[in-house]
């Protein structure tokens, strides 16, 4: 099975061949590196930009205004913060012009902890990004979803923020991407650039026959069915929630796990249907917990589903501290890990009206 990085790369290849993507660009995105996490290796429209995040987002807006379809990358989301007013501008160009202009652009930036990235390679962006209207915001947790969400993003006529969790970029999925060869080594031989110090200038990828497999924007996925409580998550914490739920099943707790996949516009129907069934909801993500996106979901659950609730909705998120420390105990204490999720599930399950 492909890794998430390979899946993104294949989706971008499909998009530049079939969906009119004109530019895949950012720092180290083009050859020889093909992206800090190899997600853009071998793409014919990939190019390297100056080390200038505002320039990258600005150029993406300009290219989109000119009718191109750019996919711009900010190498780590920790470095996207100095572009926030440009992200606002991209989000308001259509609204401010009363529908005159649209921006078919994708910004991709990897998010979250999990590689011992210390203060500037560990942070999340979903809490901040979900404060900016006018965008679609997606976060995959599997290679197949990463592929399908990227295909959908590249077909959009509006700006899409694509947030791959860096901890999952090298993880392999359980479901194949349509068209990928069954053998991992064979896939690697076809599409992975030879590692340094090999000369990559003569290397060209051999792309498998890919398809336009889409994951529709705005659609969540129930990844584990259950009847006692609902866990809503996305990104790095999603597989941890699933594992914690599997473990809880051995204790007789039946937890339903929803992968939100699109943060905006999000699939309220999926959450609503699940909470109506379970009466209990736990939101899990790793961004800092104050004005966290999970808080919004909880506010809405309380406002609209109050009489169906059997316990106060819970949020398990990153600690509200200025950074994620490098040392293992610091990172573990700062963002939710599987035992934290297991504990939260058990505690929520134990609550009775």
């Amino acid at each position, binding site marked *: 099975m492909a890794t998430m990085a390979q899946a993104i790369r294949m989706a971008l290849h499909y998009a530049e061949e079939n969906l009119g993507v004109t530019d895949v660009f950012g720092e180290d995105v083009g050859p020889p590196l093909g992206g800090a996490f190899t997600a853009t290796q071998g793409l014919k429209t990939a190019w390297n930009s100056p080390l200038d995040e505002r320039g990258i987002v*600005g150029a993406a807006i*300009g290219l989109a*205004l*000119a009718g191109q379809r750019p996919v711009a990358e900010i190498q780590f989301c920790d470095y996207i913060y100095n572009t926030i007013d440009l992200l606002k501008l991209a989000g308001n160009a259509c609204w401010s*012009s009363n529908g005159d202009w649209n921006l078919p652009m994708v910004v991709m930036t990897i998010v979250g902890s999990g590689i011992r990235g210390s203060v500037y390679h560990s942070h999340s962006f979903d809490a901040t990004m979900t404060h900016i209207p006018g965008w679609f915001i997606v976060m995959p947790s599997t290679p197949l979803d990463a592929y399908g969400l990227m295909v959908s993003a590249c077909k959009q006529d509006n700006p899409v923020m694509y947030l791959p969790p860096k901890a999952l970029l090298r993880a392999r999925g359980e479901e194949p991407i349509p068209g990928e060869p069954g053998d991992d080594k064979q896939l690697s031989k076809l599409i992975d650039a030879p590692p340094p110090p090999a000369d990559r200038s003569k290397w060209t990828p051999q792309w498998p026959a890919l398809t336009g497999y889409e994951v529709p924007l705005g659609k969540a996925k129930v990844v584990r069915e259950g009847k006692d409580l609902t866990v809503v998550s996305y990104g790095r914490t999603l597989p941890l929630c699933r594992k914690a739920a599997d473990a809880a099943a051995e204790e007789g707790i039946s937890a339903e796990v929803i992968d939100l996949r699109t943060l905006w516009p999000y699939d309220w129907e999926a959450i609503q249907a699940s909470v109506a069934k379970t009466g209990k909801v736990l939101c899990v993500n790793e961004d800092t917990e104050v004005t966290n996106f999970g808080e919004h979901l909880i506010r809405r659950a309380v406002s609209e589903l109050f009489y169906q609730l059997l316990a106060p909705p819970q949020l398990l998120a990153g600690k509200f501290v200025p950074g994620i420390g490098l040392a293992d105990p610091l990172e573990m204490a700062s963002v939710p890990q599987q035992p934290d999720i297991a504990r939260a599930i058990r505690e929520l399950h134990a609550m009775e009206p």
Partner: protein
Amino acid sequence: MTRPKLVTSKEAAQGPALEPERLVQIHELMVKARVLEERLIQMYKQGHGYFWIGGPGEEAFNVPLGLMVKKGQGLEYDFHHWHYRNSATLLAMGEDPINPLRQMKNTASDPYSGGRNFVGHFSKREWNICPVSSPIEVQYSMAPGTAIAQKRHGGDGITIVTGGDAGTAEGDFATCLVWSSRKGQEVPLLIIVTNNRWGISTPYEGQHGEERISDRGRAFNIRSRTVDGNDVFASWEALQEAFTYVRAERKPYLLEANVSRLYGHSSADGANLHGEEVDCLKRFEEKLQGEGLLTREQMDAVRRRWTDEIAELARRVREEPLPAPESIWRHVYWEGGKR
């Protein structure tokens, strides 16, 4: 590279002469633009708008700029990333003056923003005029994007970006210089700075180490020049050189125009006439009169005509409805165009 040249009106006058018909046209457009801005200010003062900002005092530069634009939609034509002082450019491109009045009055009929944005915040996709926003620097980051697309497309369409002197302190101005001048990947971008020597209340002196803003182009091998933007002849000649270069060479050009800010920064500091600033229109009219091209009476008649016409348009706009409250939900996402 040599030091950027300061082109004076005396030098420019030695260049190719402007045809009399052209001078009369420029005069009329400058008057029209000035009268429009003065009407917008009056509307603000009479309570027919919440806020005024615009470009009175920049007409000698902004009218010739508009007249040189290759106007249309798509990569074949010029793209525009302006700040909020380009009304004279818009009128010179042929815009109906009623539309800025509508934006001032924030009516539903405002074609640039449907009553959502301040006056001077134009947007007109038909003419490649990208939405103007209030931040004074962001256009410098976006402009290389359209220029990259135009370079790739071929043809002679260029991108034009405008901003003020104070905004060049922002990182986006450096972004513009860096991205437009990468060796072998230069893009057809006309970078304009209208220098009125003010950033709201803060004078130019005290905030700049560079003598001229155009000096900054040198480090990037960008052809650069400073021009007396209060002089029609100098502006015309400098713009012609810049447009010709960018169109043909497909490379950036940095043009700084020294201009006046006749009515202050915006309504926030009163929008009152600053008599101490050079008035480019007065200066041009003296020249036209001196050369015997137009008489005082003829020029007064032009002003009267536009004053009456724009006053009438303003009256009409007053009757137009405001946007409906439920319209806030429209156009958050693309609905396939203006409807």
